[in-house]
């Protein structure tokens, strides 16, 4: 790679970096920041996982064995917030940081310093969220947020300091997400290589672009809702108090106006990376690029107009029930386009089944379960039975674990050779996949039946008829949780590939991979694309 066309001082940039911790505190390099996001996400994935394993252990048998209901209520809510805001979203932002500049032929993200800020807001936010656990040990306050992650007023108005900590944490997390989104949008709009039109943009970038717009539109609404909650708690306002002319249901509207798009915020980056993986391991170009892009846009638009299906039991007027039912059902159409394109991409290819491909296919099948159960959940009448039950818990874990987290794992295995320069341990990867997929189903399939039998969610103890399925679910969860240590070990091993004697990865780490990122060396040079690739047709 020649440096001739860029300013000469840039070539010495590595040397200007401070060493040690300061390097990471001050870095503006998209690859460093991407790695920090991904590492942070992995750590928080284990923190959130440990919380829910404690919950599952409590639910192994009827009766209270390990904890009191107060602590149980704190664990379930913080588990959700940690997994969503501190594991899944940072992981997706990590992908964006690493991959978008590589994929569009840019030297870095457009706003590198904002990028650094976006990341360094996360650790304090995570600390704020979990600190009340520790404070309670020292006798200050009564623990963390105890209302579930939905923070419904007036329960959250009643809560202790944990609620205030969560409100501040959410503000900081929100600012971080908005900064990240701004960076993605302006980078994609301004730093594409010459000749890369929007309809030639890699589909992963399209997925992230829609996610970024959704974040910009909905995070301020969540921030507004929790600010109102804060003023209701401490400054005598009555946004959510009927006695003062407010309405508790207003909070649910505001929360889910953010909360439903949030589901797609978590999933769009994954839907974006899937076609790349499927095409690579099918050795065939992806099917229906345009159809997928338009589906992303359609899902993005639909996602902001279906929110009230999260509280069908709250007593909405009939026309509202019907509208939200039918609009929710409509999402199945663009989603079906995506499934069709994924399967058509594999169709008549020459498939091989390396770990990323296994994860991608596992993702498609289990995310299918989530999509189809989502379709029946949209039905208001049947929803009266499913709502607030374990059926819903099973449904959204098929969407967000099998869909979100397994999608992230697909991406990690797919790009790990590019990031580290070494091929990860394929045997460990496959072991990780099979353990994950089997124990995941063992954990969540029984929860569908628990929900149908009438077990409400968020209860620390349950009636005797729910015993067997809960026991099975807990065994599954333990296997699922501990299997993830293989994942962490595999990444660690790959990151230190030289010391572990792993094979170096070529620039094009996968035989069937196409796209700009594979034109660079593995790992890519310090300034990713110092010379812009030119995608214009010769003579055009």
């Amino acid at each position, binding site marked *: 790679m020649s440096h001739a066309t860029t300013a000469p001082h840039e070539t010495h940039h590595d040397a200007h970096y401070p060493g040690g911790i300061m390097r990471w505190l001050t870095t503006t390099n998209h690859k460093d920041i991407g790695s920090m996001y991904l590492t942070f996400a992995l750590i928080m994935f284990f923190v959130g996982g440990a919380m829910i394993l404690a919950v599952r252990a409590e639910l192994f048998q009827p*009766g*209270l064995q390990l904890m009191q*209901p*107060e602590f149980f209520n704190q664990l379930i809510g913080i588990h959700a917030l940690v997994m969503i805001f501190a594991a899944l979203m940072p992981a997706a932002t990590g992908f964006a940081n690493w991959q978008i500049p590589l994929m569009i032929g840019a030297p870095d993200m457009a706003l590198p310093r904002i990028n650094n800020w976006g990341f360094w807001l996360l650790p304090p936010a995570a600390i704020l969220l979990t600190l009340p656990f520790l404070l309670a040990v020292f006798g200050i306050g*009564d623990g963390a947020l105890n209302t579930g992650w939905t923070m*419904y007023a*007036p*329960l959250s*108005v*009643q809560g*202790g300091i944990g609620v205030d900590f969560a409100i501040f944490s959410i503000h900081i997390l929100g600012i971080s997400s908005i900064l990240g989104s701004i960076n993605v949008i302006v980078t994609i709009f301004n730093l594409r290589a010459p000749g890369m039109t929007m309809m030639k943009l890699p589909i992963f970038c399209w997925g992230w672009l829609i996610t970024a717009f959704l974040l910009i539109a909905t995070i301020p609404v969540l921030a507004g809702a929790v600010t109102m909650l804060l003023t209701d708690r401490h400054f005598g306002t009555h946004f959510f108090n*009927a006695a003062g002319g407010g309405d*508790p*249901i207003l909070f649910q509207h505001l929360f889910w106006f953010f909360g439903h798009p949030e589901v797609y915020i978590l999933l769009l980056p994954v839907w974006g990376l899937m076609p790349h993986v499927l095409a690579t391991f099918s*050795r065939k170009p992806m*099917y*229906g690029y345009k*159809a997928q892009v338009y589906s992303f846009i359609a899902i993005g638009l639909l996602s902001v107009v279906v929110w009230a299906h999260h509280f069908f*039991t*709250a*007593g909405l007027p*009939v026309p509202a029930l019907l509208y939200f*039912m039918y609009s929710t059902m409509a999402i199945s*159409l663009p989603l*079906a*386009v995506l*499934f*069709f394109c994924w*399967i058509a991409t*594999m*169709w008549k*290819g*020459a498939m*091989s*089944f*390396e770990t990323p491909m296994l994860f991608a296919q596992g993702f498609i*099948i289990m995310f299918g379960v989530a999509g*189809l159960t989502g379709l*029946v959940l949209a*039905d*208001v*009448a*049947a929803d009266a*039975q499913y709502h607030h039950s374990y059926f819903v818990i099973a449904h959204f874990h098929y969407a967000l674990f099998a869909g979100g987290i397994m999608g992230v794992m697909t991406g990690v295995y797919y790009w790990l050779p590019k990031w580290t320069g070494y091929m990860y341990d394929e045997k460990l990867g496959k072991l990780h996949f099979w353990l994950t*997929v*089997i124990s995941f*189903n063992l954990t969540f*399939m*029984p929860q569908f*039946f628990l929900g*149908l*039998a*009438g077990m*409400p*969610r*968020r*209860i620390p103890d349950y*009636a005797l008829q729910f015993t067997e399925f809960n026991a*099975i679910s807990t065994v599954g969860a333990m296997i699922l949780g501990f299997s993830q240590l293989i994942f962490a070990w595999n990444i660690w091993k790959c990151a230190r590939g030289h010391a572990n004697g792993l094979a170096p990865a070529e620039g094009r780490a996968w*035989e069937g991979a196409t796209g700009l990122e594979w034109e660079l060396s593995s790992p890519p040079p310090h300034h990713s694309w110092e010379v812009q690739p030119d995608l214009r047709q010769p003579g055009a």
Partner: protein
Amino acid sequence: MKTTHRFVRHRLPLALSAFSAALTALTLPASALADYSWNFPPPVTPIARDTLNIHNEFMLIITGIFVVVFAIMAYSMFKHRKSVGHQPAKFTGPMGRLQWIWALVPFAILLFIDFVVMGIPAFHAVIEMEDTKTKADMVLKITGMQWKWQYEYPESGVKFISNMSTPRDQIANKEAKGENYLLEVDNEVVLPVDKKVRILLTSTDVIHTWWVPQFGVKRDAIPGFLRETWVRIEEPGVYRGQCAELCGKDHGFMPVVVRAVPEPEYAAWIEKKKAEQEAAAAGSDKTWSKDELLAKGKEVYEAQCSACHQPDGKGIPPAFPALSGSKIVLGPLLSPEGKLIRDSHVDRVLNGKEGTAMQAFKATLNDVELAAVITYERNALGNSKGDLIQPAQIKALR
């Protein structure tokens, strides 16, 4: 690369059979229990029957879609593999009219399933479910409160609170769990069969959700607002459910038990309840001895207060303060003129404290119960203030 394909050829079937073995293992202990539930419990109202039919139909449809779609994918995974020498095609979209038709047919089918096969029955079910206002035979008002339900029959004025009756020792695994563990109450709500009961819901503190799975009814109880739903129970029996919206500490211990009986039996029960209530109201005019108040107060304390303030009165600070040695409890009872003192013990019990789980008990307890529990708290739980308050004094404060 070679090892990869060997894995798929030899170990993929192995892994799949291990997976199905796991699934079988999953079903084994359950099938050992003959009455184990894989679906909704037996429906006893028209709504629940509708819901079950819709659910069964929809499950069949989505299972069908799942099998067809992933059979196609599985076929591709076995046929279009590099290891069997399949040469990759190059297409990136539908080519030619035939392929366009193939690509569009699934969406036409899905559109039809969504809005016709599923959409039409769903529409009728919603309309029926929300039909609360026509031809109601009676009204039942349900008030959710942390962590119990209050039931009120406006026509006859009968009103009572229903608390979970499962002993705390069963929850703490100190004694064997009963048959209806966590799903049993001290006062069951009684309803007549074959009558359309219009149910009004509200709450005094946070949002609760009233749910009886066999009725197919789940509706939120929202503080400051009325929500409604309806049931027509078709078979006599005892039906159990519980609160479905996280409402704080004892959310898991807030069961609903409905006893459905034939009309005459219901009428007799209402008369009995009415008589009980009148007897209790008469008690507020007589003068009670301290021992009588303490005995009654202990009963009330254990049913209403001990969940938060704990049976020994030590509470769970800071959310649930201790009553033992509390400044408020040991403060003055009433002003010299017999008036309420702001933020005193009596004020707290009667009017609650806004923004906390401490509710206004004057709405749910009668004069005798209030006087008894106040007297009890001042002279038990490690306190020995020595004074007492008469039901008549409470009555004067209302």
